[in-house]
C-alpha cells in the first residue's frame, strides 16, 4: 500500500523510497534520520546477500523491481546490471574526482560510483620482523620460493575478494595468468573458501592460530590491527598487488518513486555520507576532498595505481576464467 508522503520540508521528492542493497551496507543512524527529516523521504533499506546476489536479484526482477534505488553493484558485476536493463538513466551529476570510477560506456548515466576500495595482499609485519625477513612486495614475489608456503587466499569461486585477486592477476599477466597461478600454487599457496577463513584461521596476524603470514585482504585491513595500546599496525597492505573495486548506486528502471530514488543517490554522494563511508563500510569515498578518519590517514594507504579491468571484459570472460582457475586449483 502506498503511504501518504509526509510533509515535505524541502526538495520535490518525498514519499517512501526503498533502497535495495547488500548485507554490508551500513551508515550511521544519525545520518539517515537527518536525511529523512530534510527530504521528507521515508527510507526503507532492504539488505540481503553479497554483491553478486544483489546483482542477480536486480537482474531477475528487472521487470518488477523490489525497490526504487539500488546501491552495491560493483565493477565486477556492473555489466550484468547494465545488460539486463536494471538501472534507469538519470541526469545526476557525478561528483568531482569520481569520473575515474565510472563504468566505461555508461559514464555515470545509469550507475553512479559511490565508493571504492582495493583488494590487496596483506602481510604480518611482526612475523617478518621476528624472522628478519623482508616481506614480499609484488605478485611476482608471491611465486618466489623464498616465500614458499606463506600465502593464503580465498577462493575465486565463492568469495568476492578471491575473484578480485584472480582479476588482478589477469590484469597483470594477461593471457598468461594461468601459468602464473601454476607457479603460485607450486609455491605452496593455500586456497580456502572465504575471506574470514583465510584471515581469521590461516593468517598469523588475524587473531586466530594461523600459520600463514601473507593473506589476501583489503587495503583498509591494517587499520584494524593496531594494538590496543596504540603504536604501529602489525600488518601492512602490499600496494602493488591491489585490484580496485568500485561500488555503484542507481535508480531502478520501473521504480515507483524515481524522484525519491534519485534523491537517495544524491544523498549517498553527499559530503556527510562520503565522510562516513570508511568507518561504516571500510571503503574509501569517491568524492574528492573528503577527510578520512585519523586511523585511516595513518594506516590505510590507498594504492596509486591499482589493477583494473573493464567491466565488459569481466562480464565477457568471467565464466571462462573461473573455469580455468578451477581446473588449475582442483587438479
Amino acid at each position, binding site marked *: 500500500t502506498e503511504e501518504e508522503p509526509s510533509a515535505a520540508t524541502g526538495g520535490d521528492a518525498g514519499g517512501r523510497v526503498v533502497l535495495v542493497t547488500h*548485507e*554490508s*551496507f*551500513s551508515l550511521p543512524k544519525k545520518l539517515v534520520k537527518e536525511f529523512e527529516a530534510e527530504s521528507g523521504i521515508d527510507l526503507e*533499506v*532492504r*539488505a*540481503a*546477500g*553479497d554483491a*553478486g*546476489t544483489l*546483482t*542477480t*536479484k536486480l*537482474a*531477475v*526482477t528487472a521487470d*518488477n523491481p*523490489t525497490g526504487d534505488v539500488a546501491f552495491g553493484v560493483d565493477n565486477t558485476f556492473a555489466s*550484468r546490471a547494465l545488460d539486463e536493463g536494471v538501472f534507469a538513466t538519470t541526469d545526476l551529476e557525478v561528483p568531482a574526482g569520481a569520473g575515474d570510477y565510472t563504468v566505461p560506456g555508461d559514464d555515470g548515466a545509469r550507475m553512479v560510483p559511490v565508493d571504492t576500495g582495493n583488494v590487496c595482499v596483506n602481510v604480518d609485519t611482526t612475523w617478518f620482523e621476528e624472522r628478519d625477513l623482508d616481506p614480499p612486495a609484488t605478485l611476482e614475489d608471491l611465486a618466489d620460493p623464498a616465500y614458499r608456503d606463506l600465502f593464503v587466499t*580465498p*577462493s575465486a*569461486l*565463492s568469495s568476492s575478494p578471491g*575473484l578480485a585477486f584472480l582479476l588482478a592477476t589477469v590484469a597483470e599477466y594477461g593471457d598468461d595468468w594461468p601459468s602464473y597461478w601454476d607457479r603460485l600454487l607450486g609455491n605452496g599457496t*593455500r*586456497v*580456502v*573458501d*572465504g*575471506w*574470514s*577463513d583465510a584471515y*581469521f*584461521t*590461516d593468517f598469523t596476524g*588475524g*587473531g*586466530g*592460530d*594461523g*600459520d600463514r603470514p601473507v593473506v589476501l*585482504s*583489503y587495503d*583498509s*585491513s591494517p587499520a*584494524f*590491527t593496531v594494538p*590496543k595500546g596504540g603504536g604501529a599496525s602489525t600488518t601492512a597492505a602490499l600496494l602493488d598487488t591491489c585490484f580496485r573495486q568500485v561500488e555503484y548506486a542507481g535508480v531502478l528502471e520501473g521504480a515507483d518513486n524515481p524522484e525519491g530514488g534519485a534523491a537517495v543517490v544524491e544523498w549517498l554522494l553527499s559530503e556527510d555520507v562520503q565522510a562516513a563511508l570508511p*568507518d*561504516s563500510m*571500510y571503503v574509501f569515498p569517491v568524492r574528492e576532498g573528503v577527510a578520512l578518519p585519523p586511523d585511516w590517514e595513518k594506516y590505510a594507504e590507498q594504492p596509486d595505481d591499482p589493477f583494473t579491468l573493464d567491466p565488459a571484459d569481466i562480464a565477457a570472460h*568471467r*565464466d571462462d576464467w*573461473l*573455469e580455468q582457475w*578451477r581446473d588449475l*586449483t*582442483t587438479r
Partner: protein
Amino acid sequence: MRRLLALAALAAVPVAVLGLFFVVPVSGMVARGFWPDGEFAPDQVWEVLTRDRTLRVLAFTLWSAAAGTVGSVGLGLPAAYVLHRTALPLRRGVRSALLVPFVLPTVVVGVAFRQLLGAGGPLGFLGLDGSATAIVLGLVFFNVAVVIRVVGGAWEQLDDRPGHAAATLGASPVQVFRTVTWPQLRPAVVSAATVVFLFCATAFGIVLTLGGSRYATVETEIYLLTVQVFDLPGAAALSVLQLVVVLALLLVAGRTRSTPVVRRPATPHRLRRSDVVPVAVTLLLLAAIAAPVLALLVGSLRVDGAWGLENYTALSTTGQRDALQVSVTAALLNSLRTAVDATWMALLTGLLVAVVVTRRSRSRAERRTRRLLDGLFMLPLGVSAVTLGFGFLITLDRPPFDLRDSPLLVPIAQALVALPLVVRTLVPVLAGIDDRQRQAAASLGAGALRTLATVDLPVLWRPVLAASGFAFAVSLGEFGATSFLAREDFPTMPLVIFRLLGHPGELNYGMALAASVVLAATTAVVVLAVERLRVTSVGAF
C-alpha cells in the same frame, strides 16, 4: 466419499502452503532458465547437462552425501540405542546437547573444524585439512543428531515382546536385532537416512569451508551459475537434475519405509554388559562432537593471548567499529522470536501432513495419494536455497501474493525447511499406532477430533516435542534462505555471526565465536526445556 473429502480438507492447508511457497517459486525460477528470453530454449539447458563437469559435480555430490549418510547412520544408531533405550545417566542432557551442531552456522563450524584439523591444530597431523574426508566428517558432525532423534524416538516406542519371543526361539541378541528390531526400526532409519542424505547432498557452506573450494556439489554449482556467472539455463538444468535425483531417492525410500509397527513403549533398561560397544561409540561420538565446540568455546574466551570475558561483554554492543547494525543480544532476541514463529508453523503444518499421510487407506489409489503427499513434503530439502530465494522474488511479486517484503517470509521459509524434519519425526510414530485403538475410541463415542486428541496425541506428544526442538534448532541455525530474505533491521544470530566474521578486527572475530557459543547454549537449553515439558493435560485424558 466423506472420508475423502475430509482428507482433502485436512491436506488443503499444507498443500497450499507448499504450493505457494515452494512449487510456484521453484518452477518460476526453473522456467526462467528454460525460457531465457521469453523463448523456449531447452538446448541451452541440455548443453549444461552434457558437460563433463556437471557429471563430476553430480558424482561428488552423491558420493559425499552417501558417505555422510552412512557415517551418520552408523554412528547414530548405537547412540540412539544408548540414549533412548538404556538408563544412561544424564541422557536427556546429552540428547539436547547433540542438537548443538545443528544450529551452529556452517561458517563457524568450518572455522572450528579447521582450527582442529588445520596445519597448526591439535589434529593437524592427520593431514585432513581440505580433504574430502574432512567434508564427510563435517557432514556427519552436522547430521548425526538427525539420526539419533528420528531413530531414537521410534526406538523408544518399540515393543520389546517380539524380541523376547525371538529370544525364546533361540535368537541371540545380535540375531534379535537383525531379525526383529531392525525390521521394526527400518522405517525410522530410512526416514532419517533420507533426510540426512538430502541435507548432505544440499550442503553448501560446509563443503566450501572444509573442502577449501576444491570440491563442488550441485548446490555450490547452482550458486556459482546463478550468482557468479548468471547462467540461469545452467542453474535451471542443475535444479531440475537435483529434483529428479531427490524424487528418485524419495521413491526408493518410500518403498522401503512402510512396514506398520505396533508400538508399546518399554521402559529404559539399566546398562548391561552387552551395551559396552554402543556406549563406547556414543562416548566417542560425544567427544568428536564436543571437540569443535570446545575449540569454539576456548577461542571465545581468549582475548589478546590471555583468558577473558571481553568477547562476551561485547555482545551487547555492535562490535568493533560498529560492524553490526544491531547488537548481538538484540539479534538473539530476533532469532528466538523468529524461531518461535517458524516452529509453530512447521509443527502445525507437519502435524496435518503426518495425520493425513498415516490414516488408514481403504483403496490402492488412496494409499498412493497419501504416499505421494508424504514425498512431496520432503522436496524442500532437495532444492537449493538460491533457487528458492530468487524464485520468491520473481513469483511472489504481484497482489494478492506480493510477499517479497513481508516480515512473515523469514519464518515461513524456515518453517518450510524444518517441515520435512517434523514430518519425518512424526510419521513413523503415527504410523505405528494400532488403528484399532482409534476404532475403540470411535466405538466409545469419540469423533474424529476426539480420537485424535485422545489416542494419537498422547502417543505423539513426545515426538511432537522432539520435532519442535528440531524445528526450533533448524530455524535458529538457518542461514541460506534467511540471509536472502531477512530484513536488515531484524537480523538473526547466524546473520550477525556471519557479518562479524566478514569484518576484520580481533574483537569481531572473538565476538563471532562468543555469539556462536551463546547460540549453541541457548539451543541446548531451550531444547532441553521443551523436552522436559510434561503435557499432562494431553497425556491424561
